[in-house]
């Protein structure tokens, strides 16, 4: 039963994922974290981050989530769930397209849907930028006035994202070095701030 549920969650998210999967991450998280309570928000993000380091599609996170929920059978259910969607959808599209071959129409449809995809992308980016800038405030430490520190960390985290966007867009850093540099910078920033917070 749980295996079917895992399969169904990932299969369903596929059918909603226009323009790639990043746009539907909040929805996937809602289903997995809020609806089913399978894993925590932090675990969810960690699985996404780790998946972007391994070769292949980022959706490598789905079998992993399946594994956390139900062991290796869950892994298989997650794998089948996330990857059987494209097989079916594209299979159908392939058959239809072979028959009615109208690339002009398809291309126009793609252009037409761009505002929708852009909207989803913007909302995901903002939601993740916000939810990932909690820093040490979300780990178990005792500081005075935690609300103040949390606000400061959000502001610093979003500023750091801005710096990262600038560095990568201007080609000062490659994609992998941007991610690693920001990881290091965020850790260092938080370590310094935490010692300040404790001594304050």
């Amino acid at each position, binding site marked *: 039963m749980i295996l079917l549920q895992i399969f169904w969650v990932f299969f369903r998210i596929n059918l909603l994922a226009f323009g790639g999967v990043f746009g539907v991450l909040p929805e996937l998280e809602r289903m997995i974290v809020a609806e089913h309570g399978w894993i925590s928000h932090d675990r969810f993000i960690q699985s996404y981050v780790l998946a972007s380091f391994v070769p292949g599609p980022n959706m490598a996170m789905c079998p992993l989530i399946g594994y956390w929920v139900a062991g290796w059978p869950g892994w298989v259910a997650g794998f089948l769930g996330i990857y059987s969607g494209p*097989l079916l959808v594209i299979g159908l599209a392939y058959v239809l397209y072979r028959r009615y071959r109208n690339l002009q129409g*398809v291309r126009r449809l793609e252009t037409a849907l761009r505002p929708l995809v852009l909207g989803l992308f913007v909302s995901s980016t903002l939601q993740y930028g916000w939810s990932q800038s909690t820093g040490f405030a979300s780990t178990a430490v005792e500081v005075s006035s935690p609300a103040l520190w949390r606000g400061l960390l959000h502001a610093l985290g979003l500023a750091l994202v801005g710096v990262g966007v600038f560095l990568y867009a201007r080609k000062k850093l490659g994609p992998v070095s941007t991610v690693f540099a920001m990881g290091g910078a965020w850790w260092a920033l938080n370590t310094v701030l935490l010692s300040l917070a404790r001594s304050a």
Partner: protein
Amino acid sequence: MLLYQDAVVQDKRWLTPEEFQEILTLSTVFPGPNLVNLAVYLGLRLTGWTGALLGVCLLALPGALLLSTVVLMLPLDNRHVFLLFQGFALGSVALFGVFVLRYFQGLRRHRIWLRLLAAAVVAVASGLGVPLPYVLLVGGAACVALEFLA
């Protein structure tokens, strides 16, 4: 995506550049991870269902297995590891931000304000927690109407 194109079009000469462009358009219009869609379509086009199945497995299995083994060995609850990974996550948000900027530049200029308004409404609606199927249905219909009625 670029590596894929080089391998299929230039090295193996399985497809012409036009055919590749076609497949790319199709795999972005339909829902699902684009790279996987591309692999399925390519497999079907070249060898049928066996090719499609093989393509997906070869594309996805190594990464998925590697990821799961790595994660089992990482102390994710350690504070330093946690902060490092949160920084990595901010990094991938930044990369995606750049991608979103480029995507924005690819919008058609004709009646751009209407398109931006549609994008903003979609962003706010999904940010406020309107269920995604409704957002896609209503937003998609509005976008298509915007394009084909104009």
